[in-house]
């Protein structure tokens, strides 16, 4: 076999990682298969549902469309990193201090407002909103809708998600 693997170095949830990845390896597979970060979900694997959303340098990205090698030198934050549990299976490492084991305000709000049912879309929704709060303090309903326009939820009808986002937007928290 021809050795075409790419040596990737980036950070995932604040932890520096270095890995050989195939050029066609998706970020989604790197996270779910190689790193056991299964909070990032496959819903369509076509960039349509947003269940696979992660933050790359603070911007929400579809992990099903992004190739692992494209993360070179960048910072990837998954839902696990947002809530601070970090790399659950990374041996010998512990989450960086900046990822305290505290739910993000949007995570608290989405539970408090009934913004989730089956929960399968929830990590992606939370990441999209976290990305929004990174850019915008106290976003409007329009900005919230714009930020979530790439996230599908089949259970909630989005009403609880909007309640949660409005609630969290009145207590913005710029982390991480």
């Amino acid at each position, binding site marked *: 076999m021809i050795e075409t693997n790419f040596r990737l170095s980036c950070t995932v949830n604040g932890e520096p990682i270095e890995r050989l990845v195939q050029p066609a390896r998706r970020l989604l597979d790197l996270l779910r298969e190689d790193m056991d970060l299964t909070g990032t979900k496959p819903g369509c694997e076509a960039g349509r549902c947003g269940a696979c959303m992660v933050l790359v340098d603070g911007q929400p990205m579809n992990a099903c469309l992004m190739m692992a090698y494209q993360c070179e030198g960048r910072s990837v934050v998954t839902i696990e990193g947002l809530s601070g*549990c970090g790399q659950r299976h990374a041996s010998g490492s512990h989450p960086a201090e900046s990822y305290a084991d505290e739910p993000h305000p949007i*995570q608290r709000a989405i539970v408090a407002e009934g913004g989730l049912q*089956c929960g399968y879309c929830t990590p992606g929704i*939370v990441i999209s909103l976290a990305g929004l709060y990174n850019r915008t303090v106290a976003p409007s309903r329009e900005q919230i809708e714009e930020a979530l326009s790439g996230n599908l939820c089949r259970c909630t*009808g989005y009403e609880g998600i909007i309640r949660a986002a409005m609630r969290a937007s009145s207590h913005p928290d710029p982390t991480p």
Partner: protein
Amino acid sequence: MEKPDDDRSSSEGAAASSPLNNRRSAGRWMERPDGAAKAAGKLVYLTDMKKPGMLHGKILRSSYPHARLLEVDVSAASQMPGVHAVLTADDVPGLNGYGIVTQDIPVFCTDRVRHVGDVIAAVAADTAELAAAALSAVRVQYEQLAVIDDPALALAPDAPQLHEGGNVLARTRAAFGDADSAFDSCAVIVEEEYVTPRQLHLYMETEGGLFVPEEDGRLTVYSPTQHGYKDRLQLSRILAMPEESIRVVSSPIGGSFGGKDELNVQPYGALLALYTGRPVKMHNSRRESVRSSIKRHPMRIRMKTGADKDGRIIAHRADILADTGAYATLGREVLMFATEHASGPYRIPNVLIEGLSVFTNNGVAGEFRGFGGNQVIFALEGQIERLADRLGLDAWELRRRNLREADDPGPLGQKIAPTDGARQVWEAALRSPLMTKRGGGAQGEEPWLLRGVGAAIVMHGGGLGYGIPDPAGGRLRLADDGKLEAVFGFEEFGQGVISVLTLLMRDHFGCAGEDIRIVIGDTDTVPHTGSATASRATAMAWQAMQRLAPPFAESMLRKAAELLGCTLDQLETGEGGIWRTADPFPVWDCQSERSSPEACSPSCQTLALTYRQLAAAMAEPLVQETSFDFPVTSSATPAVGSHFLYSYASVVTEVEVDMLTGKVRVLRTDHAVAAGPVVNPMGFLGQIEGGSVMALGFTLTEDVVMEEGRYARQQLDTYMIPTIRDIPRQVCVEAVEQLPEDDPFGPRGVGEIGTVGLAPAVAAAVRNACGSWISRLPIRPEQLIRPYHAVRQHWRGGDIGD
């Protein structure tokens, strides 16, 4: 029903009828116990699981919608390195078939394929890529057969027969009076054909799971389903293994909506795991999910409805033709439900409903939230609107004149549990501010935007129905660690059964969340409590707890009294354990330092014994079990499938139609739901909000278009469900909780009813906005679009600009 963000915490007095949005007052607005883990991405779904040494399974499906299967050659595929098993029909040790009622779906096809989801072979390999490569190395020879892609074709005399019994899965008939001759005495008659789409459940988690052969010879199946025991039964037939040798772990689930009730990948995962002796993971891609999953039945419904000049409906006829696809699954039951619900909550003396469910090569249709009610209520409510129009009557008033009374029999003449739900939701709808705008259309912000209000009413049965085994039950247990366990065979697919059970435990025992452990979703630990389908789980959990809690509490108190040396009536269950009540012997060491019983407030009570201490003192574990059946009608000879407990709902909606693009936008919806007391307000609200957005897709965009038996829409880029941008700006949900005083049945289900009423309400609103009658879903913009000049004509005087 004002703004949903109003603070309603002071509306205590309106307990019988209260908007749910933001309802926090009663202390029942409870965060889901599984919510934090879900929001943190920590909850492990069954399709997230892996095991060391695990193989990846994949399924080869038919290349043709209808063909004879001449030869399947797996030799090349089997020899590929990294491929551990390639299985076909020859490898099924037991029954080569499955299906909830009739086992007519081949696990592997032998001589014929009937839809593009039919399975020919399954592969387990070291990686998913290798498994996919092996699939393409399986050589299959087909002889194509004529494709039946329309139920009308299936009924043609010379049509190829898809099954031994022919192309008709089921026929239904419900008749009262003499509809055909009663039409003669009608002042007006409306007749219309309604067409509804093939809707995809589109649960966000596609089908999959992990299948693990255990060292003791048992098999563990980690795979989502709505009824673990039923999967276990079906798998035991296929695998020729005793049921006890199979453990089905089936929760948590990333959405189902009826779609995961039938088996999907389980037979293949199980067979591959047993053949290879290694854990096998299966997880469908979205395309494969679309190709293989069951869908909502497309229906063609012809209705003829007649009324006298005062608007009393005298005669009603419905002919339902359902496309059930290639196999039975619950097609017959869906048709029965549609037949029962096709005359709705109305008193009609002469009714004739006939249904036909027909096999085609269009995939497979089956169970889907609403269960055939969505289609017929869309048609029926459309008839009511047309009748009102012809009579020059207000459509809501027309409904009132025909609405059922509390004690009326059910739609099939069966005795039903009396409630005034129909009237309650009819009245609730009138409280919607939108209702003042019904009737005439109005102009939106631009001259080409036309607004209209429409409303609809729904009656929806819960449970499986008369004559269909519908057992329920449950178990309470004081665990060794002092947790109060509620053990039920229901599944958690997001609807909130864990919350419901937690709230019921709190209600009955006054205990805290930390005192409770909910055990569900594992056939090794849960009792038979029936399925989490048919809007039944909350109702059955409530009824089970009514039976379980009093004796269980008494057993705990009896033991505690014995340990403490006091009498039973001095104790009660509460947070953390058994409490000594202040009355009649208040305890001295309380804060108030008073001893007179009258003066004692609840804060004087003391925790006498923790649940853990009580558990430790038990000689044997305290367990209380119950089993009973879902209540059914007591009529002498009821129709099979007829229901006894019904929920009612009304929907009022305002839409805006863009006459230049034909696009319909739903601006606001007000729901009223009469389903008895609300156990879990957050779940109730979520069911109605979520259900109605699912209905919005059914109304405006969703249709799994098929061309000659093939899916023309296979991904989320062409099959469009509502996004956050498509939902109404305002949604109000009102729960009407009042039941007759002597009602023993408690909460009715609301899992499905939210998906039913929106389509007819939107159709009525569109008609009121722009004059077009809608008889086909999803509403096609082409039907509504008007040339620019026609729009200008319509709004003479409106400044349309150039």
